[in-house]
C-alpha cells in the first residue's frame, strides 16, 4: 500500500513523560516521525503536538488508535482527513557579501518573507507558509550560502468551527 503524508494533531496532558510516551510509541511500532512540534494550548494543563508521518492507510488507522490508547492522550486527529490549514515557519541565516544583498532582498519580497537580523556578513530571514512554499524559498537561494536553517515543523488547524479542544 502507498505511503501518504499525514498530519496528526494530538492533545496530551501537560505532564512529565508524555512526550517520551508518544515518541516511544513511534519507535516501538516502527513508525517514522518526519517532524514534530509541541507547545502549550489555551488550557495550560494540555499541550498540543503536531506531527507529520508517512504511512499507508491501514497503518495510520492503527497508529491513531494506539495514540488514543495512551493514558495521557486526550484527543487525536488526522488533519489530512479533512479541510485544514497548514503553516510552517522557517528561520534562515545566510552568508552574504555586498553584491548579494539586493538579490536576497528581492527574493525575500517575492516570497513575502522578512529580514529579521542583519550583520556585516549575514542576513537572517523569517518566512511563514505551507511546506511547499518553504521548500521553494530554500530552493531559490541558489548559490547563496545557508549558514543555518531552522524549521518549526508543520502546524495545522482544521477549517471552520471544529476544534480538537472540544472535550468533555
Amino acid at each position, binding site marked *: 500500500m502507498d505511503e501518504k503524508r499525514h498530519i496528526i494533531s494530538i492533545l496530551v496532558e501537560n505532564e512529565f513523560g508524555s512526550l517520551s510516551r508518544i515518541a516511544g510509541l513511534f519507535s516501538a511500532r516502527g513508525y517514522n516521525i518526519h517532524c514534530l512540534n509541541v507547545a502549550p494550548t489555551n488550557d495550560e494543563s494540555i499541550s498540543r503536538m503536531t506531527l507529520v508521518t508517512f504511512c499507508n492507510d491501514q497503518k495510520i488507522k492503527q497508529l491513531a488508535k494506539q495514540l488514543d*490508547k495512551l493514558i495521557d492522550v486526550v484527543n487525536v486527529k488526522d488533519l489530512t482527513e479533512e479541510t485544514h490549514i497548514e503553516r510552517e515557519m522557517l528561520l534562515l541565516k545566510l552568508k552574504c557579501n555586498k553584491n548579494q544583498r539586493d538579490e536576497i532582498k528581492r527574493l525575500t519580497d517575492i516570497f513575502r518573507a522578512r529580514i529579521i537580523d542583519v550583520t556585516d556578513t549575514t542576513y537572517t530571514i523569517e518566512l511563514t507558509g505551507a511546506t511547499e512554499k518553504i521548500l521553494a524559498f530554500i530552493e531559490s537561494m541558489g548559490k547563496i550560502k545557508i549558514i543555518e536553517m531552522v524549521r518549526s515543523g508543520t502546524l495545522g488547524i482544521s477549517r471552520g468551527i471544529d476544534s480538537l479542544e472540544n472535550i468533555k
Partner: protein
Amino acid sequence: MKLSGSQIIIECLKKEGVEFIFGYPGGAVLHIYDALFGDKKIKHILTRHEQGATHAADGYARACGKPGVVLVTSGPGITNCVTGLATAHMDSVPMIIISGQVSREYVGSDAFQEADATGITRPVTKHNFLVDSRESIAEVFKKAFIIATTGRPGPVLIDIPKDLTDPKVKINFEHPKKVKLRSYKAPISESKSKIDEAAKLLASAKKPMVYAGGGVILGNAHKELAALVKNIGYPITNTLMGLGCYPATDNQFLGMLGMHGTYEANMAMHDCDVLLAVGARFDDRVTGDTSKFCPSAKIIHIDVDPSSISKIIEVDLSLVGETSKILRDLNKAVKPYLKNINKSALKRWWTQIDKWRTKKCLSYKKSKTIIKPQSVIETLYEITKGDAYVTSDVGQHQMWAAQYYKFDKPNRWINSGGLGTMGFGLPAAMGAQLAYPKSEVICVTGEASILMCIQELATCLQYRLPIKIITLNNRYMGMVRQWQEFFYEGRYAMSYMEAIPDFVQLASSFGHIGIKIEKPSELKSKLQEAMNLKDRLVFVDIITDQEENVYPMIKSGQAHNEMHLSPTGKDTELA
C-alpha cells in the same frame, strides 16, 4: 487523619481491598516496609527474587481476577521486575507495582541504586507514574487501580521517591472518592443497530466458527459466551490464552487452534464462512500466514480494546466494548434470527467437523518402556478430575499441558502466552495457591524452565504453599530442539541440558519432598502419591521420552489447512 506517605500508601491499598503484597525490601522502600510491619490486614509475601514477586502477583491476578500488588526497591529491585511486567503487559494482567525511588533531591544525579524506573518500564506497562508530592500519593494510587483494572487491563507502575515516604512528615489524609481521568476513555458501547447487524450476519452462516481468547476470561464473560454458543449451536475454538473460557469437555468445543492447535479447529477456521472472534487478538501463533487466514470468512470481532480491531486481520464488523455486555446483547439480538439459520447447512458443517475429528490428531504412540509426556498430562487430568489450577512455563511441556488437560472453567490455566517467559510457572503457582489455599495447584514445567526461578522454592517453604511441580524432564530444551530438528537439520546448538541437578535432592535441600518417576508403569501411582501429600510441596521429576515432538504443527508461513500431524509430513486432506 494525619499520616505519613508510607501510611497513606498502606491505607490506599487497604481501601482497594488488597490482601497480599509480593515484594522484596531495599533502601528506597524501607519506610514503607516499616509502616507495613505488623500490619494485620495486608500479608506481605517475601519472594526470593523480584522477578518471582512480579510473576507471583501476576499468577494471583490471573487466578482470582483481582489486581496483584508488588513492592520493590529502586535500581536493581525495579530492573528485576522488567520481565515480569512485560509478561503481564503482553497478557493484559491487572497489576500494581510500587517501586521505591531515590529521594527527590538525588533524582537525576546517578545516585546509589538510582534507575529511571518510569523510563525503563514505559513500554511494558499500561501506564506509569512518578509521584512528585506527598499530597498526590492517594490520587495516584486511585488512578493506578482504575487504569490497571478497567478496559483492557494491564500493569501500572508507581515510582515513589524515598523522601515522600518519610515517617516524620505527616499530612492530612483523605481517600479520594473520585479522580479526574479525562484522557482515559471508558469502553464505548455499541449501537443497537450494529449489534443487530452482527446478529443477522451470524445467523446467515452456513459454516460458522467461534474463536474466543483471553479477553473472555479477563472480561469475566465466560457465562455469556457459553450462553450464546449454546443458543446458536455453533462450533467453538479457544486460543492458548482462552482455554477454559468455554468448557473443553463440551461437544461444541473443537480444542485449541493455532500453531499447535487441533486438526479440527484449524481446518474449521480455514473453511468457515462466518467467524466470530471474541476477546482474541489474531496473534501470529494463531493466524499462521495472515494472507491465507480464514480466506472465505466474514469476520465479526468483539473486543474491549479498539486498537485490537483490524490490527492484524481486517475485519468486516467490529463490536467494541465490555465483552460480557456485548455478548449478552448479541445473544438477545440473535433470537429473532435463529429461525433463519440454515439447519441443513449447519448439519453438513458438523458432519464435516466430525470427519475431521476422526483424525484423532492428538493421539500418540504409547510406550511401555519410556514415559510419554502426553500421558503425564492425561494422568494428571484424571487424578485431579480436571479441576486443578495449572500453571506452566514455556516449551513443549506448555503445549502438551494446553492440549491434554481439558479445562472446563476459566482462570484454571495460567501461562505466559504472549511473552513466553520461562521461569513464570513456579512463582505464578505461588500466587494462585495464595488466592486459593484449598485448591490443587500444579506447575507443569520443563527441566530448563524450572531453573529460571528455582529460588522461589524457599518462598514456598516459608508460606507452606503445597504446590505440585510436575517436571517433564526430557534433558533438552525440547521446544528449541524441535525447531532445530525441523529447521536446522538436527543441529542441536545449545539446546541440550548438561549438568541437570538431582531434583529430588534439590527439593529436599529446600525442605520439600522430591519424587522421581522413570517407568510408565509407576506413573499413575506415584503421581497419585504426590497429589495425596496435600499439605506439602512435592517436586515430581518425570523422565520422559527425550525426542518426542509437539503435534499438530503449523510451520511458519503456512496456512491453517497445512498442518503437520506427524513426522511424515503434511496432512491436508481427509482421505
